[in-house]
């Protein structure tokens, strides 16, 4: 009996796998009805199941697959044409087979009366009877192969059970693909992951010891251990990763069935099926994804006539995209259907009492769309059996959030809806920055990290300001909200310090600076889930185990942002605020070479002078003027920056006097056409126009302006800057 149980378990695993393949094959077959290859593959699968079920005395299963097999052999041999009714019947056969397998899994027999086999068999037989003369199976009919002894069997045996002998059917009708994989119990993999974790910790301890050791052999061996352990860890982690395609493989079938049922024409496009994520997550996203796909079909994509009336192709497109983005797996479900009308959503939400009219008025469009995830919200005018029972989207969100993910929806009325599911890489390895606060270490996912900024000395006072209690940092002309990690963790606001370490973080549209006490290093961490006692804390995304065996919490950047009340700032608004910032520079804007603009830092200008043309004298090749009891060397700016010189057209010359830093060298006069303005702007320098004497250009007062490289210009006068 134990042997039997084992054989049955094996049979179940194998058959389930085969059925998935079968679903794909059948849907594909409908598209290319004459694909011999597919037909053969389907035939083989069913044949294998039939054979084994006969062997194991699963009579109903066998009877069902037998009729199916007969129909399939007709198709394969070209005696019967593939038609939608046939496809339908075959698919329902696959479903029934699956249901029977489920019953076997639960009770060990296939006699579950809840699974109706007869109608399916009848349909299949009807199809067999129709077009071609039924190919009678030569075997003599065996009415009732004896049922399993201990189970009371309701008499549900199909009428016709032509039965090949079990021994005969166990012929090697296997998949031709070489099976290069081994089936492993997931619990075993989990154990391996834990053991490797332990090994890594032990290695770390050993490494620390061996560092101080004089034993060369020990040092060498522990280094080798180090290497091997790291590779082992990586490999073991990979064994838990599975492509998302495994979940998707069921969707073509779902889409096909639903679109038939709903009278939609839908093209399913899937991209990124090879994107891998941890198998535990895979399991968790299966139902939500299926629900979202159903939703798109039910509420999104319109019937063909409606689509054509709206000027869209009758066939709608449903696209699934999976990809890795900033340490997360993103799955996009996009349709080109009718989209979601925020006004309608809002009206319904108010009507159903999900929110008040007042609350609605204060909501942004994005927030209004988010209402569909509220419990009890449903926009379906009529309750269909596909979706629209109002238990859908909130359950989707709950399930996704349970694994630490998020869902959001974007929609353009008339154009379509895109739902984006973000799944964290729980149990995956991610690079992280380790910071210190209050004697503990915290890991920040590298994916959220923009840069590290250290502010010291006077800069702390100049660049960090408090606006009504909120700290902001002036960072390259933009104001960056600052959040103190110590405060976030419930500690006291640290006293203003000599130096400040700011970790600039980004999560979605939100960018802010997190002030931390210490920055340790970056390292690969294994993300581990934390218990449900801590699930309510938005601050943490999980935890990890550090090299010394201690636990460190992983910070949830989005959670910290929302806890601290930092939200997205549109770019323009940030610019406007930045104009009050410190990165603005005072510039002297000049005209040279007949209408060209150049700018000097105002700080470099000592005085502005005008000299009569005739006061210009020569000393060697250089032009000079006598100025304040001394000699002021002159540089024609236009010539110095490679432009035609027009500064001598008037009676007077305009000179910018620049005191060089070297007191002995004195001042230099820079000859320009005229002074245009003094402005204070935030300069965003560009390399465009960079050449000798010009460090680059910038837009000043809406005009492109050369930024003068003062040192280079001064050098032309022969005076060192």
């Amino acid at each position, binding site marked *: 009996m134990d042997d039997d149980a084992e054989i049955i378990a094996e049979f179940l695993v194998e058959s389930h796998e085969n059925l998935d393949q079968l679903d794909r094959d059948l849907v594909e077959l409908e598209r290319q009805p004459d694909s011999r290859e597919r037909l053969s593959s389907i035939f083989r699968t069913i044949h294998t199941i039939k054979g084994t079920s006969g062997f194991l005395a699963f009579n109903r299963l066998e009877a069902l697959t037998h009729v199916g097999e007969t129909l399939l052999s007709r198709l394969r041999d070209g005696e019967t044409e593939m038609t939608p009714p046939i496809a339908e019947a075959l698919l329902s056969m696959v479903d029934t087979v699956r249901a029977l397998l489920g019953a076997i899994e639960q009770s060990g027999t296939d006699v579950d009366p809840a699974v109706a086999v007869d109608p399916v068999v009848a349909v299949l037989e009807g199809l067999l009877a129709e077009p071609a003369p039924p190919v009678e199976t030569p075997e003599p009919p065996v009415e009732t192969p004896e049922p399993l002894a201990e189970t009371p069997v309701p008499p549900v045996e199909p009428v016709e059970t032509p039965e090949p002998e079990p021994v005969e059917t166990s012929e090697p009708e296997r998949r031709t693909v070489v099976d290069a994989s081994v089936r492993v119990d997931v619990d075993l993999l989990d154990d391996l992951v834990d053991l490797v*974790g332990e090994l890594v910790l032990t290695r770390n301890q050993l490494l620390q010891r061996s560092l101080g050791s004089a034993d060369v052999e020990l040092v060498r061996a522990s280094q080798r251990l180090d290497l091997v352990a790291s590779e082992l860890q990586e490999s073991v982690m990979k064994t838990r990763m599975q492509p998302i395609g495994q979940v998707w493989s069921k969707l073509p079938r779902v889409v096909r069935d639903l679109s038939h049922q709903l009278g939609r024409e839908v093209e399913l496009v899937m991209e990124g099926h090879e994107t891998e994520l941890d198998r535990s997550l895979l399991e968790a996203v299966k139902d939500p994804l299926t629900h979202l796909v159903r939703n798109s079909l039910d509420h999104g994509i319109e019937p063909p006539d409606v689509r054509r009336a709206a000027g869209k192709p009758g066939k709608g497109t449903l696209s699934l995209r999976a990809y890795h983005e900033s340490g997360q797996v993103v799955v996009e479900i996009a349709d080109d259907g009718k989209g979601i009308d925020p006004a309608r959503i809002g009206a319904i939400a108010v009507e159903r009492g999900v929110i008040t009219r007042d609350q609605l008025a204060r909501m942004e469009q994005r*927030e209004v769309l988010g209402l569909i995830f509220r419990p009890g919200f449903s926009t379906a005018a009529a309750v269909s059996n596909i979706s629209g029972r109002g238990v859908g989207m909130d359950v989707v969100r709950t399930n996704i959030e349970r694994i630490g993910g998020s869902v959001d929806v974007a929609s353009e009325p008339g154009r379509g809806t895109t739902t984006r599911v973000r799944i964290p890489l729980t149990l995956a390895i991610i690079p992280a920055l380790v910071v210190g606060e209050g004697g*503990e270490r915290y890991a920040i996912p590298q994916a959220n990290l923009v840069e590290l900024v250290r502010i010291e000395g006077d800069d702390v006072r100049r660049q960090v300001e408090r606006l009504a209690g909120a700290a902001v940092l002036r960072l390259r002309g933009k104001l960056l909200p600052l959040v103190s990690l110590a405060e976030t963790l419930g500690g006291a606001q640290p006293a203003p310090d000599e130096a400040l370490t700011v970790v600039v973080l980004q999560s979605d549209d939100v960018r802010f600076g997190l002030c931390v006490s210490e920055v340790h290093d970056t390292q690969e961490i294994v993300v*581990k889930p934390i218990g449900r*006692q801590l699930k309510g*804390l*938005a601050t943490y995304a999980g935890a990890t*185990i550090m090299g010394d065996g201690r*636990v460190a919490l992983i910070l949830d950047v989005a959670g910290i942002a929302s806890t601290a009340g930092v939200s997205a700032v549109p770019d323009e608004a940030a610019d406007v605020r930045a104009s009050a910032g410190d990165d603005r520079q005072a510039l002297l804007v000049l005209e040279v070479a007949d209408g060209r603009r150049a700018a000097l830092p105002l700080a470099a200008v000592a005085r502005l002078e005008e000299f009569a043309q005739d006061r210009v004298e020569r000393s060697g090749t250089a032009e000079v003027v006598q100025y304040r009891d001394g000699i002021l060397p002159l540089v024609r700016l236009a010539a110095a920056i490679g432009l035609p010189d027009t500064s001598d057209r008037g009676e007077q010359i305009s000179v910018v006097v620049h005191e060089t830093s070297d007191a002995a060298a004195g001042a230099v006069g820079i000859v320009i056409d005229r002074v245009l303005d003094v402005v204070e702007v935030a300069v965003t320098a560009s390399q465009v126009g960079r050449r000798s004497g010009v460090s680059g250009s910038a837009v000043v007062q809406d005009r492109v302006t050369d930024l003068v490289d003062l040192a280079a210009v001064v050098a032309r006068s022969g005076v060192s800057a």
Partner: protein
Amino acid sequence: MSTSTSTEQLCTFWVADLLFGVAVEEVQEVIRHQPMTPVPRADEAVRGLINLRGQIVTAVDLRVRLGLPPRDAEQLPMNVIVRSRGEVVSLLVDDIGDVIDTAGVDPQPAPSNLPRGVQDVVRGVRPLPDAILLVLDADRAVDVVTAPDTPGGNP
């Protein structure tokens, strides 16, 4: 003749001067004091996280959970690792007792004048000859939920 509690073998431990018991099936193991990583902003009863052979386990201090006075600073708690709703949680207790077979002692409901904090997590009592054993409901004992700290009003 007995109430819902069918368990007879109880793993016992002391918290302050109270003797508690948890069904042995619910206890995974008992370990010494472990280094802990505190979790700022978590419920007071959550003392920290420990690394149990690569698994991260939340440690719930039963003294805090029961509303009892804190233990002396030099007294290191022991970890009773229990399984609760698919998760592994550590209960921090003062001292470990024996595994007691309570087959001969009928369970009784908890006395109604027990403090709320204790009554909340106790399934019943078994009056032993030399002490009264409080049968702990591990699921409820570890049910320490930290309220979300995000400001309300999210859609």
